[in-house]
C-alpha cells in the first residue's frame, strides 16, 4: 500500500486509525499470530479474512489489550489504545456473549452509553431514548424489552450493532457480525457500515463469506497466522483463488440449525 502513510510524517500517522507494527501473540508459548504489520486507511471498511484458527479474533483482542502480546506496537489514531479507548467500539463474537444474562435488548444497547453517563450516575430517559433510536435504526424497536436469549441469531447481532452505534466511536472492531444472520440482518449491517464510512469512520470486520468481501469492503486483510496480503480489495483480493480454498457456503443449513436451536432454547 501507501508507504508514505506509515512513519514519515507525524500528522499522517495521527490520521491512521489503526497501525500495527510487528505484532506477535502467543498462547502458552505457541504463536497464534506473528509478525503482523498493518496500517489501515481512515474512513474505510476493512474485511479481515482467513480460515478458522487463523488468529482473526486474537488480532482484534490484542488491539484492545484484552490479551497480552509477546511483541509489537499498536497505535490507535497515533496513540496507545489506553489513551483512545473512547474512540474504539467493539462488537463481540456471538459465542462469547452470555445470552442467559438477565438483560433485555434495550439494556444491552444502553451499555454502549455507560461511558458517557459516567460512574455511579443513573441511566436517564434521554439515554434510553438514544438507545431506542439505535434499536429502531437496526429494525429492532419492537423487541427492545425481550431478554436476549429470546432473540434469534440475527436479532442478537442487530442488538450488538445498535450498541456499537450509540457508542459513536471512530474505529469499530467487529468480530464476525455476519455469522449465521438472516438476509435482512445482513443488509441492515451493511447499511450501517456504509453509513459509518460516509461519516468518516473506520470499521475492521472479521468476515467469513468470501463471496461478499468485494461488495462490502474497500480494503482487505488476508490473515493466516501471518498477514498473507493486505491492501485494497481490487489489488489483493482474487476471488477465484480463495473460492477454491474455502468452497461454497450452505446458508440454509445454518438456518434450520438456528431454528432448531431456538426451539430448544425455549424448552
Amino acid at each position, binding site marked *: 500500500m501507501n508507504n508514505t502513510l506509515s512513519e514519515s510524517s507525524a500528522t499522517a500517522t495521527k490520521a491512521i486509525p489503526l497501525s500495527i507494527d510487528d505484532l506477535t501473540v502467543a498462547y502458552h508459548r505457541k504463536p497464534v499470530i506473528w509478525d503482523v504489520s498493518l496500517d489501515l486507511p481512515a474512513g474505510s471498511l476493512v474485511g479481515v479474512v482467513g480460515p478458522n484458527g487463523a488468529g482473526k479474533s486474537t488480532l482484534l483482542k490484542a488491539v484492545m489489550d484484552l490479551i497480552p502480546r509477546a511483541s509489537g506496537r499498536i497505535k490507535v489514531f497515533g496513540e496507545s489504545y489506553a489513551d483512545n479507548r473512547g474512540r474504539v467500539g467493539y462488537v*463481540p463474537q456471538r459465542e462469547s*456473549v452470555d445470552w442467559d444474562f438477565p*438483560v433485555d435488548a434495550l439494556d444491552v444497547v444502553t451499555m454502549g452509553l*455507560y*461511558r458517557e453517563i459516567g460512574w455511579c450516575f*443513573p441511566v436517564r430517559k434521554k439515554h434510553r431514548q438514544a438507545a431506542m433510536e439505535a434499536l429502531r435504526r437496526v429494525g429492532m424497536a419492537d423487541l427492545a424489552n425481550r431478554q436476549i436469549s429470546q432473540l434469534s441469531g440475527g436479532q442478537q447481532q442487530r442488538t450488538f450493532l445498535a450498541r456499537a452505534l450509540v457508542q459513536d466511536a471512530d474505529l469499530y472492531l467487529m468480530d464476525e457480525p455476519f455469522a449465521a444472520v438472516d438476509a435482512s440482518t445482513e443488509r441492515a449491517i451493511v447499511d450501517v457500515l456504509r453509513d459509518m464510512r460516509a461519516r468518516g469512520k473506520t470499521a475492521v470486520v472479521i468476515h467469513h463469506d468470501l463471496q461478499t468481501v468485494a461488495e462490502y469492503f474497500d480494503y482487505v486483510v488476508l490473515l493466516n497466522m501471518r498477514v498473507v496480503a493486505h491492501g485494497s480489495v481490487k489489488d489483493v483480493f482474487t476471488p477465484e483463488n480463495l473460492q477454491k480454498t474455502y468452497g461454497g457456503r450452505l446458508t*440454509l443449513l445454518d438456518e434450520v440449525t438456528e431454528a*432448531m436451536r431456538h426451539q430448544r432454547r*425455549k*424448552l
Partner: protein
Amino acid sequence: MIFAISWNWSLDGWIVLAGILAAVSAALLGNFLVLRRMSMLGDAISHSVLPGLAAAFFISGTRNSFPMFIGAVFVGVLTAYLTQWIRGMGKVDEGASMGVVFTSLFALGLVLIVQGADRVDLDPGCVLYGAIEQTPLDQVQLGGVGVPRAVVTLGIVTAINTLFVLLFYKELKLSSFDPALSTSSGLSAGLMHYLLMTLVAITAVASFESVGNILVVAMLVVPPASAYMLTDRLPVMIGLSVALATLAAVLGHLGAMAVPAWFGFESTTTAGMMAVASGLIMLLALAFAPRHGIVVKWCNQRWLAISILCDDIVALLYRREERQLPCVVLENELCRELQAGTWSIYFSLVWLQQRGETTDANQQIALTEKGRDRARNLVRSHRLWENYLASQAMVDGNRLHGLAERFEHFTGRELREQLDKEMDAPSHDPHGSVIPVEKREEGTSL
C-alpha cells in the same frame, strides 16, 4: 403438637433478625457472583478469611477488634488475587486454582486456631455454624435500647452492600455481562472484580461469628441462584434473592426449633437449618420456575413430542393417499407404524380432531382438507430438504431421510420458499417422489 414452638421476641426476634441481615447482605453480592459464574470464589473467600482472623487475633490479642477485621478482609481479597495469579501462571484452570488457594488457607486457619486453642476463644465448631443462638446475649446500647452486637455489625454490612449495589448497579451489570466493554468504557472490570471481592470478604467476616461459615457460603449462592431460575430481569432477580434469603432465614429458625422436636430431639442449630431451608427453596424454584423449571420444561417437551407426532400422523395418512392405499387407519396401526406409545397416539389424535385436521369414525382415522394442507406442507418440506441435502450438501443417500425427517418439523413457509428458490423449484425428490405444490393462502401474493 406439630408446631411446638415457644417464640420469644426478645430472643428469637433478634436471632431471626441477625439471620435475615446475614442472609440478605450475602445474597445481594451473591447475585453478581452467580451471574459472573464465580459462585465458588465466594465460597473460597468466605473460607479463607479464617487464617486472617486467627493471625490478627494472635497479633492484636483481642477479639472483636478492628485489626482482626482488617486482617480477615485482607486475606479474603488475597484469595481472589492468588486465584487469578495461579491461573495466569500455568495450565491450572480457575476451579483448581481456587481449590488450591482456599483449602490451603482454610487449613492454615484451622491449624492456627487449634494451636492457640488454650489462648483463643474461637473453636473450630463455631467456625462452621457460628453461634447465632447466642446473638441476644452480647448487647450494646444504642440510643438507650439494648441491641445485640451482631445485629449492629450485620446491619452496617447490609447497609454497605445495599448502597454498593444501588450505587454501582450499572457498573456491576456491565462488568459482569461484558468485561471487555466495561474496561474499554473506562470502568475497569478488574477493579469492579476486586471491589466486589472485598465486600464479599467483609460480609464473610462480619457474618463469621454470628452465623458461621455454612450460612455465608449458602446465602452467597443459593438465594441468587434460585432467583435466577425464576426471572430474566436483573432488578427482579436482585429483589427476589433478597426476599428468598429473608424467607430462608425465617423458615430456618422456625425449622430449627420445630423439626427436631418431631423426632424427639432438642432444637438444632439455626444457621444450619437456614442453609437447609434455602436449599429447599432452591429445589422448589428448580421444579416450578416459569421458563427454566423442570415441570414447565417437561410439559414443553411433551408438547413438542405430541406436535411432532401429529405431524407424523398426518404425513403418514397423506403418503398413503398418494400411493392410493386405503386412506384410513386404525389407532393401533398408527402405534405400530410410528413406533409410538398408545397414550401419545391417543393424545395426538384428540388434538388433531380438536383442530379439525382428522376425523375419527369408529376408530377409522382419515384426513380432513385442513389436515391434508398441513400434511402437504410437511411432505413438501421433507422432500425439498432431501433434495437440498443431496444436491447442495452432498449428504449420503441413506442419511437423507433421517435428516429431512428432523428438519421438516422446524421448516416454515418462508424457509420452504427459500429452499425452493435455491434449487430452482425442483419437481421430484432424490427418490423420485413428486414434491407437492404448496397451496397458496387467499390474499397472499407470491
